């Protein structure tokens, strides 16, 4: 049964009083034909019929108050009425339509996929146990994003472009991330998200994959000026050391056992802010003037802090620097993040008695820890690198 309900008359009016019926039960009305006069608090309104139909019932009497949405009129049944059984004739202006007396009655079908992929046990036509299938376009995309490892780990390479993007976003801290701030000392279950999650995953993988060795030493930075920028000097030293020891400005490929050295020195600089550890990259540091290095560094740090950093700023580091010693800590075993082969960590500067020119003086000591991938370099290599680094830092 189709009904015509009191429509919203606007202006916040909620109800109307039936003043006069212009039709009666049994009338055949046309669209737009006026049915009834109703009075609201503001005016008398004429209501037209929205359809052509026969009135079967008037739902309110003159004087009744009707609320918006309440039925005013019922029309004769909207049940589907079939016309004369023309289905026996193949009605068409051209051609003939085949008919049959077949009645399928209940159609049975499922919308969409009925089986879940994970429960499928299939023997694949793969050539080796270790290779995984994914369409070439997916593999190329994964390479571009730098998430090939994730592709290899997925079930039968089932990841598609949209899945890879999600992984990429997570890996380079592009999703909004959660809040891991600990306000109270209490029993708390903290779920790692965002940068913290990425850090946990990266460190875990690096630790497992890289046989790292750390060399410790000190640099005497008594010769530094008061206004010297620590990070800038460290970066300068790193660049010089890399130029002299290109093996440390390189990537190690464990599958093919190759070392790729690079002309460009891209330094990943560890930046720690409230919601986690970020390592933006100063690209082509060897070509930059001091001013440019300074500027890039401060702009990267600013971008990290304001979360406005584009993801490509995290890509392509050939060596990393971590200045962890702002509060305390001398030496550390910083973790080498593959495919890089080295990372330099510096701790807290301290005053200590040192021997210079056969006398004991107070010196300013900068503790340095160089971790390196022992598959790519030897202790001797590392020693040479460290020597160069210290020499430059002590200038």
């Amino acid at each position: 049964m189709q009904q015509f309900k009191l429509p919203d008359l606007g202006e916040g009016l909620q109800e109307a009083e039936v003043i006069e019926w212009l039709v009666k039960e049994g009338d055949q009305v046309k669209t737009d034909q006026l049915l009834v006069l109703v009075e609201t608090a503001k005016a008398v309104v004429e209501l037209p019929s929205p359809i052509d139909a026969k009135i079967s019932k008037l739902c309110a009497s003159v004087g009744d108050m009707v609320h918006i949405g309440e039925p005013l009129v019922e029309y004769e049944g909207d049940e589907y009425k079939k016309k004369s059984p023309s289905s026996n004739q193949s009605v068409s202006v051209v051609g003939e339509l085949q008919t049959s007396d077949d009645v399928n009655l209940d159609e049975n079908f499922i919308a969409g996929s009925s089986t879940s992929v994970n429960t499928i046990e299939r023997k694949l036509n793969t050539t080796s146990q270790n290779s995984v299938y994914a369409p070439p376009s997916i593999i190329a995309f994964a390479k571009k994003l730098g998430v090939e490892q994730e592709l290899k780990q997925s079930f039968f390479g089932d990841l598609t472009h949209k899945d890879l993007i999600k992984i990429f976003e997570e890996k380079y801290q592009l999703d909004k991330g959660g809040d891991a701030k600990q306000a109270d000392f209490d029993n708390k279950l903290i779920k790692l998200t965002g940068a913290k999650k990425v850090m946990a995953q990266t460190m875990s993988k690096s630790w497992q994959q890289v046989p790292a060795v750390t060399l410790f030493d000190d640099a005497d930075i008594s010769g530094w000026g008061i206004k010297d920028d620590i990070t800038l000097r460290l970066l300068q030293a790193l660049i010089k050391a890399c130029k002299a020891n290109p093996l440390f400005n390189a990537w190690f490929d464990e599958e093919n056992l190759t070392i790729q050295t690079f002309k460009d020195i891209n330094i990943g600089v560890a930046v720690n802010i409230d919601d986690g550890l970020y390592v933006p990259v100063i690209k082509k540091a060897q070509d930059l003037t001091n001013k440019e290095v300074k500027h890039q560094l401060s702009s990267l740090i600013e971008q990290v802090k304001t979360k406005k950093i584009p993801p490509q700023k995290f890509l392509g580091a050939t060596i990393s620097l971590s200045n962890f010693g702002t509060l305390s800590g001398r030496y550390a075993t910083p973790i080498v993040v593959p495919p890089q082969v080295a990372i330099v960590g510096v701790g807290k500067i301290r005053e200590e008695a040192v021997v210079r020119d056969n006398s004991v003086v107070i010196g300013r000591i900068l503790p340095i820890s160089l971790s390196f991938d022992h598959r790519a370099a030897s202790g001797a290599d590392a020693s040479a690198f460290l020597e160069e680094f210290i020499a430059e830092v002590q200038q």
Partner: protein
Amino acid sequence: MTTLTHDKIEKELLHFSVARYSLLNNKGELVSVLPESVSGDQQALKAYKTMVLGRAFDKKAIALQRTGKIGTYPSVLGQEAISTAVGMALDKEDIFTPYYRDLTAQYLRGVSLKEMLLYWGGSEQGSNYKNCPKDFPICIPIATQFCHAAGAAISLKVQGIHQAALVTGGDGATSKGDFLETLNLAGAWQLPLVIVVNNNQWAISTPRSVQCAAETIAQKAIGAGIEGVVVDGNDYFAVSFAIKEALSKAYSGKGATLIEAVTYRLGDHTTADDADRYRDPKELKQAWRNEPIKRFRQYLFNKKLWNDDKERALIKDVAEEIDKAVAAYLSEPKLKPESMFEFLFETLPNSLLDQYAEVKYQSYTSSTVAGKEGV
């Protein structure tokens, strides 16, 4: 009805007619009393200023194209009166369906100069009109806009809204099926529709004489059973009057009108065209004598509504307005490439998410990551 005998057969000739008139001649003199609907001084001044702005912007747009700042652009030089009359006559609640040579009409409707530059500069953002959200966008496929306007008119009629739809097109467009089918429907269904044909004599290199054998384009209205009017398209008052009459008629449910505004395309078809290849320079020179702005300025001068100082001030204001718009356009950030997916359907289907992912992060993958390609 006259009878003729020809080879002893008596024939009755049926006569149909279209009206033709003009109000302001090319010397700036009124040839008739101005009807009330177009006689206001304020209206005249606004129309004049808009035409001047239109011509200046047109010139600027061509310069921008020549310096690579926008793409191909169709000049409106010499046709400012028609477009301005359309824009001035339309009611805010009417629906406008432009083609691509409706500069001042769209401007008066609320399309900003920046939006126009964005459109011709190759950005979809230029069709996302902030101020006239119901207007159709610029239409490139010739004559297809006529059907849309008919649809809009039907929509008004079905919803019982007493407004009109107005559509514009060129003389070339009147040869296409879409135009003829629309005319026919406008008559058969008595649609609240006003069709304004900008007959600027040229469809790229095809002159009007080759386009159609009928003496006027307006008389195609006869074939559809609706009213046809021919006006001098360089005469702002005549065009304006004809449109206002037609709109009135449409509002009161009395049906559609076809208005042919006769003018001349003083510029090239677009910046990619060179009209010197196919036009007689003498004809062009003659046409300049009839152009709409000069005669209107003369009329305003004669009526002491305008003077040289005001002209100078207007030129300065117009230049400022245009420069501001150009600056805003040039500094507008480019749409992100992934936006090509964002307005394809109401919601992006699952099957397209992969392609979307690929494009969205193209910017991230442009710098190499994996070792093979170096750093």
